[in-house]
């Protein structure tokens, strides 16, 4: 066990692509926790998807042994955090497990929306922030400007902060020295009743749930009975230990100030919620650690197997994903159009995309997803308040006394030349301008209050396209606000297709309706009969398109008795047909659903 004064617990926070993972790699290498030869690029991010997207989805932690030039031996616990707004709560819990944070800033980009959002989170958690200016090897690097920004915008001293190139391995020792020098050692009483913070967990088929904890007070060892204070469940600890670059390392005990893991034959991550406090069953602490929140899904969508017979495979996939992701919720749902599927709840859009992609990749399932929805708060005429996350369950207009939708505070940082376009975009998405700040002469920070349902479709894409990729976005839920909402139904050949219904603000209903009808027209193959596509609010049709009937599809040549050609042609046609979805009397390609989801206002 390391002497408490030689422990440093810290996170690395950064805007996406500012080099967080690369810096982590270098720290591992420099402390010889991992040798260069063993070094797999970006060791911390080991899910394929994370590498491709360059983001960390789940928090990780690793212990580094650092022999400092002063002759002391230090234990540095690096706690990695997710880098996206959807995971803001997870970030805040990871930060709470630390005493300090490295704030990585790309020397050529400067401070961006997530840099700021994460820095504020770190400040809120009373962390010592050590700015690290990265990518100084780039020709466009401007270290001085970054230092000024850190001091002016975040308000922390940046004089003499490390300026490094993680990629080139430049000045990495400076970072380690700054960690030891500037970040305080943990405090906490090893003899007090146990108080440990859960900041992550994952399911292992052999060990059960492996829980990542930071011990705040007390000492924990194998054999003790623990209690999860919020979940209320109790377990007998099987093993405790530290987290090395190569996996779990068993120890006799974990004490105040230390970071490590516990296993206790826990069957589901639902019992080990991030932010919960672990204490001893027979000697509990009085108060849990502050700040616990149950992870609540904000975005919902129907997920259906493209091949209806694979429903149970989809359920297996979701169950397996949920083992490691307590924030994913799902329950069975039936759609007249799509058959059996699940209503899934996600923390946000990115979370949704990641889950959908993992279902397709890791479980080899083709899925159809319905338009994402937020949770609407409806007050009925009879005074009952209901929360609706599925347009199918939306009450008819005459039953609704008042409808409210969730609002968010959006924080957008953009180069000044794109401000006009972005303000138009926010305006178009029903954003209410709150304020605007110049970060420096070239960049602006915009604050908007916006309905969440306006950003769940393609707001992020539109923002990127209007700013040539430079603008960054961060948002958090603010409150429910009264709104004029309507349910828009899509009818094919006169029948409502439940999977295509969605809730939209009254003012936007006509535009969206027209656009969806057009998109569907492009994506519904011609059938033997004419297919009217209609959009309706209540019983009123507000947009209409028609897919003309197919009139000619024939091969009637006589090839001297060669019938194999025609056979092949028909077989191919039959195959194509199998991929289609039958919606009432109409056949629709699975792409039609995607086309409706990926509506781009700019086209």
């Amino acid at each position, binding site marked *: 066990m390391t002497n408490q004064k030689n422990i440093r617990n810290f996170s690395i926070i950064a805007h996406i692509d500012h080099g967080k993972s690369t810096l982590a790699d270098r720290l591992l290498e420099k402390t010889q926790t991992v040798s260069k030869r063993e070094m797999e690029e970006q060791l911390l991010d080991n899910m394929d998807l994370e590498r491709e997207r360059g983001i960390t989805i789940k928090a990780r932690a690793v212990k580094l042994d650092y022999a400092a030039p002063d002759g002391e031996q230090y234990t540095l616990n690096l706690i990695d955090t997710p880098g996206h707004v959807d995971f803001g709560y997870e970030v805040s819990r990871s930060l709470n497990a630390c005493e300090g944070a490295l704030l990585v800033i790309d020397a050529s980009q400067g401070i961006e929306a997530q840099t700021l959002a994460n820095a504020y989170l770190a400040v809120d958690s009373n962390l010592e922030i050590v700015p690290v200016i990265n990518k100084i090897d780039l020709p466009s690097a401007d270290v001085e400007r970054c230092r000024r920004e850190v001091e002016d915008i975040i308000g922390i001293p940046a004089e003499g902060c490390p300026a490094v190139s993680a990629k080139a391995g430049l000045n990495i020792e400076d970072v380690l020295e700054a960690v030891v020098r500037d970040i305080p050692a943990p405090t906490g009483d090893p003899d007090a009743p146990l108080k440990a913070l859960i900041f992550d967990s994952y399911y292992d088929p052999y060990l059960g749930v492996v829980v990542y904890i930071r011990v705040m007070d007390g000492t924990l060892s194998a054999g003790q009975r623990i209690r999860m204070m919020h979940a209320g469940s109790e377990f007998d600890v099987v093993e405790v230990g530290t987290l090395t670059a190569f996996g779990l390392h068993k120890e006799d005990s974990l004490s105040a100030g230390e970071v490590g893991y516990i296993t206790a034959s826990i069957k589901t991550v639902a019992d080990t919620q991030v932010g919960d406090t672990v204490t001893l069953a027979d000697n509990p602490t009085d108060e849990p650690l502050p700040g616990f929140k149950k992870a609540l899904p904000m975005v919902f969508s129907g997920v259906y197997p493209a091949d209806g017979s694979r429903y149970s495979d989809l359920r297996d996939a979701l169950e397996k994903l949920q083992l490691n992701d307590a924030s994913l919720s799902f329950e069975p749902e039936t759609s007249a159009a799509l058959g059996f599927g699940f209503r899934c709840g996600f923390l946000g859009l990115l979370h949704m995309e990641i889950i959908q992609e993992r279902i397709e990749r890791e479980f080899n399932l083709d899925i159809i997803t319905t338009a994402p929805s937020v949770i609407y708060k409806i007050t009925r005429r009879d005074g009952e308040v209901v929360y609706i996350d599925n347009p199918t369950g939306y009450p008819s207009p005459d039953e609704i006394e008042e409808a409210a939708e969730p609002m968010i505070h959006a924080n957008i940082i953009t180069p000044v030349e794109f401000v006009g376009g972005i303000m138009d975009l926010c305006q178009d998405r029903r954003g209410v301008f709150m304020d605007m700040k110049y970060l420096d002469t070239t960049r602006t920070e915009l604050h908007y209050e916006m309905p969440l349902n306006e950003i769940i479709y393609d707001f992020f894409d539109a923002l990127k396209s209007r700013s040539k990729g430079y603008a960054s976005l961060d948002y958090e839920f603010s409150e429910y606000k009264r709104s004029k909402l309507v349910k828009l139904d899509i009818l094919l050949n006169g029948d409502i297709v439940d999977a295509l219904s969605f809730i939209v603000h009254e003012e936007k209903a006509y535009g969206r309706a027209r656009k969806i009808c057009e998109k569907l027209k492009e994506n519904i193959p011609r059938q*033997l*009969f004419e297919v009217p596509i209609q959009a309706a609010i209540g019983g009123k049709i507000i947009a209409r398109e028609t897919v003309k009937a*197919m*009139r*000619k*599809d*024939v*091969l*009637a*040549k*006589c*090839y*001297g*008795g*060669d*019938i*194999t050609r*025609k*056979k092949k*042609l*028909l*077989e191919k*046609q*039959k195959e194509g*047909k199998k991929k289609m979805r039958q919606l009432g009397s109409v056949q629709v390609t699975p792409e039609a659903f995607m086309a409706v989801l990926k509506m781009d206002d700019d086209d």
Partner: protein
Amino acid sequence: MKRIGLYIHIPFCLQKCAYCDFYSIPGRDEALQKRYINALTLHMKTLSATMGDRVFDTVYIGGGTPGLLSVEMLTTLMNGIKDNFKLTEDAEITLETNPAVADEAKFRVMRGLGINRLSMGMQSSEQAVLKTLGRLHTFHQFAETFGEARRAGFDNLSADVMYALPRQTLKGLLETLRLLIALSPEHISMYGLKVEENTPFGRMGERLTLPDEDTQCEMYERAYELLEESGYHRYEISNFARSGYESRHNLRYWRREEYLGLGPASHSFVDGVRYSYPRSIEDYITALEQGRLPEVDSHVTLTPAEAKDEEIMLGLRLSDGIVINDDLIEKCKNYLRYGFMERKGNRIAFTTKGFLVSNTILADLLE
């Protein structure tokens, strides 16, 4: 005694048409033609013994343009057929030809050899359309050749026309048909253009402008009406005839009766097996010259399910359609209700509207 048809592929023509992807070699290589006819004769000799008690009641000499073969070669070929296979007294013996490759004298020889039906490529009466197709003749030449065939004693003449062609209009197609009807052929085939990949048309891609879908449909519908009014009844999706002049050989294909195919790219259906020869005249000739049988390209013994699918796919090309059963009635319920199909006693058949979208419906009906 079993009845069977004989198909002989003659893969020679003067020039490839822009839409054609049949196997044929353009030019006038008489030496090759001669070797080929000899090879065919050898082939027939070898197969003769394997035919058992089968009698041939149809013969179809297709191509290519078999009409361009010399009188000597035609004689060798016909003698080969008659020497090796038992033909029925009333066998239908068809030969395909094009305008301006045979004259009255040659037609007389053909008639004398026992050929009793000619199928002539007309395609269109419009010069601009013929040119686009890469046809070497004019309408005038077609009409002349047609007259020569009549004078030579042919009383069963068929002509091919095409629709849905580049530069073709509805008016132009109907004019073509009126001019053809005036010549009073016994049989008319009308095929829609299908752009095949490895043809000049196929290579033109987007640059090839065809009549739009509605016009193509109207072409088929109006042509059908005109032909019916003029005494040509549609007995198959693309074939029209005066009563009693339906092509007996082509009917074999749709009725799944046996046929023996000879020559490269020819197809056979014998004893429940479908097979074909590869598209190479060299391989075919060489094998037979060396005393071997040519290698077979594909060889498929049909399963009962496949045979059933074929019955539907092929039988529904006929105006008489196929015999119905409960399963089929259920599957075709909506097609019947919306006028794509009709009941004819205990049979079910496509209507004109149904013929036009028959691929879509067949893909639905097949197992």
